[in-house]
């Protein structure tokens, strides 16, 4: 691989997000994280759903796959499982991941494929001009809604936890440096990492703005919070960790925590696949069929 500079990770394509959009910060953090971890662009793939956030892959010089609304996780998991040596990042908005893609969000947690999923949460459907997203609170009325939101809010952290995500964190779009560190940590985590990013939409979300967030945010790790859950933790210790997680995951309003909430050691789906494919991941689907098929052997059970 060539020696690459930070700028090499940035594609020539100009982002078409609104001025002041939180997406710019996430893009920069992602670019810096990939550069600092020296990830080979040709061994890295970024997948996205549909929406403003989903344009992210076009702005990075790696394999970029801009998929379908809500389907980013299955596509990304398919690629990662077929070539487990790739660095895989999936990105998408709250509508993409927790609205139309909620079933995939949950199922991905059950598998624990080794990759990072970044959810850009702005509480609105921006590209279709500001309808309520699945993370907008009940009764909240952003400026493009004719009436207060009649549907309740999904807590992405709790849902990720219930689904089995093994690394759960929250970042803030305007805290590029902090976000970069979280992305690096999520990429280095073995298993499915979920990074919830608070990403104010300056155009459609006039409730949860940069100004609203700034005084409320704090870092969990500054307060001695330890997210690490080693394998084989005694049940009472695990209960304590879970209680601690829940307490922080629901904290919203006066104080909003950022940082790593949960970091557990759980076998990945790749490791579980070994029960079926003993040579995996050394021999993986993207390599193609390695030996001629033993058709003769397979036909034995059908012989007359």
């Amino acid at each position: 691989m060539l020696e690459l500079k930070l700028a090499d990770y940035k594609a020539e394509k100009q982002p078409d997000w609104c001025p002041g959009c939180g997406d710019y910060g996430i893009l920069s953090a992602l670019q810096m994280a990939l550069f600092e971890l020296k990830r080979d662009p040709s061994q890295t793939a970024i997948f996205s759903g549909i929406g403003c956030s989903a344009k992210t892959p076009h702005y990075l010089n790696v394999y970029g796959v801009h998929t379908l609304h809500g389907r980013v996780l299955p596509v990304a998991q398919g690629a990662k499982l077929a070539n487990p040596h790739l660095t895989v990042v999936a990105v998408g908005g709250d509508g993409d991941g927790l609205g139309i893609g909620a079933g995939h969000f949950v199922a991905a947690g059950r598998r624990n494929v080794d990759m990072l999923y970044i959810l850009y949460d702005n509480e609105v459907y921006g590209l279709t001009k500001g309808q309520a997203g699945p993370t907008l609170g009940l009764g909240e009325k952003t400026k493009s809604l004719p009436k207060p939101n009649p549907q309740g809010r999904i807590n992405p952290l709790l849902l990720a936890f219930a689904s089995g995500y093994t690394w759960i964190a929250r970042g803030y779009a305007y805290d590029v440096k902090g976000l970069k560190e979280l992305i690096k940590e999520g990429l280095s985590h073995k298993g499915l990492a979920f990074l919830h990013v608070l990403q104010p939409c300056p155009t459609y979300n006039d409730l949860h703005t940069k100004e609203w967030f700034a005084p409320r945010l704090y870092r969990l790790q500054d307060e001695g919070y330890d997210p690490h859950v080693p394998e084989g933790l005694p049940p009472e210790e695990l209960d304590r960790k879970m209680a601690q997680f829940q307490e922080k995951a629901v904290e919203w309003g006066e104080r909003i925590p950022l940082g790593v909430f949960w970091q557990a050691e759980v076998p990945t789906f790749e490791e579980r696949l070994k029960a079926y494919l003993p040579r995996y991941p050394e021999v993986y689907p993207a390599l193609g069929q390695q030996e001629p098929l033993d058709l003769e052997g397979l036909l034995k059970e059908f012989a007359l």
Partner: protein
Amino acid sequence: MEDFTWRVGGPQGGGIETAATLFARAVAKGGWWVATKREYHSNIMGRHSYLDVRLGRKPVGAFREKVDMLVALDGETLARHLDEVRPGGVLLYDPKVLGLTVRGLPMLDHRVADALAERFRKANPSLQDLLAAFVEAGVQPLPYPYEEVADRIGVELGVPPLQARRTLNTIAVAASLHFLGFPLDPLLEALALQFRGKVLELNQRVAQAVYREEMPKLSFQLHLNGYEPGRVYLTGAQAAALGKLAGGLRFQTYYPISPATDESTYLEAHTAFTGADVAVVQTEDEMAAVTMAVGAALTGAKAATATSGPGFSLMAEGMGFAGMIEAPLVVTLYQRGGPSTGLPTRTEQGDLMFAIRGGHGEYPRIVLASGDIQDAFLDAQKALAWAWRYQTVVVHLVDKFLASMAQSLPKEALRVLSLDGEKRLGPRHEGFGPYERYGPAEDGISPFIPIGTPGGFYWMTSDEHDPVGHITEDVALREYQMEKRMQKLETARREIPLEDQYTLFRDGEVLVLGWGTVKGTLLEALDHLPGVGYLHLRLLWPFPQIGPLLEGKRLVTVEHNYSGQLADLVQQETLKRVHHRVAKHNGRPITLDEVVEALKGVLAGRAPERLVLRKGV
């Protein structure tokens, strides 16, 4: 007997499948070619199910309307199959069921019970009444108390009663074969294919005990037909799975659905075989199944999914995505009765138009259909090869009839094809910069480097895009990319060998057109229909240029759907009128007898434009 069909009916979960497989293997061990069809309910246990095993001196691909021997393992079988045994045929039943009444059969549809009530002019006919009707129709009744026999043999062999009762299927098969005068040895050999160890020993002793009993002589006997080694007996779902393996499949996704699941679970269970180490992933739904397969394909893995009607509807979105980003993808579609949940375990060919057109917008897709077990094996290989050659979606159409049908065939019929022609580029090392994945290509097929190819990167998007894969709404780029993609259809039509597009099995003034699983039935029907030809379509899209073959013929389509979807397609693509549409949409496969009768009507000039076949149980 030259032509013989054995039917076993009973409650689902009661092991009647084991019985049919045993019977098929026993007669196959005696040299007969066999084919088995399976009819069952969407139910785990208790509802009625039956299987037909048909024998022939040459490979069998069709089923008869009436059977020669009906083995009723319960009372309901008598009620459902009252008119299904040919005159002179036999009915093997347990006399203890005669105490039952039609209204006392809990799983019998009211429609059937009411029809029987009307027929016998009684509110609640007894099974004794039904038996009398069998006899009146010329069927020979053979009372055979399976359970009593099991108990007796159990005592004789010193086996506990519960264990002996578990051999009821073997007893039913052994009794059938013994009645038919068929030797014992092939049955013992068949048991050895089915069981191992102590269970085998018990079943063989049970079979021997049945054969020691005196049986009344039947008017017809089943003789040996000269065993030849090298034959295999497998289902369509197994053949499709094996074909995928032969075609180099590396990644399969699925969401459980009848009748497609059997293919994926077969793959899951056989990953230990050399070259069969496929990653099989059960997904949360069919949107995930199709898109996960796409993700795998983008890295260079030959990937596929398998589904049935409702799942295919959900996959329409993901297939369009694959078409747009030019991902090689195979979807094996096991058609079943629709619309909606429809008839989950019954057959239909109702998805032809949807396979060709389903989804929003237009993208090139290739649709092929298999007619029998061998086709399923070969077509699965072609489907994968074409998906990679043309970098697009290939829909491989099969159906429930084929999925659950089993046929014996020579092992050589299952040959591994050498198909290539992929436009895949190797690693690229010079410089750093995006790769023109969607660059110019006269045949529509741009060179492809999978994700992970060293030195490369580019973008893919479900939006319209430029040559490196960035979103565009530019008119010239849109026109170019759309035309480039659609050009693949013309390239495929030109490149795919004609023998893979259609087969004119016989020409005739009356020319029957069919696709998929009507094949076996029509091929045998030709023996009874001088002057009738048969054109079997293998490739349904791009549609083969068959117009000249149809010139001046009286055209008839035969298919398992309501409207005659092939007829519409033929008319649209060839501008030739289809004179008669033979349709069947009750979920049961077309029988040899009913299609011969329908086509005789066409030959005699007394057939309407639309004929609906209604036979089946």
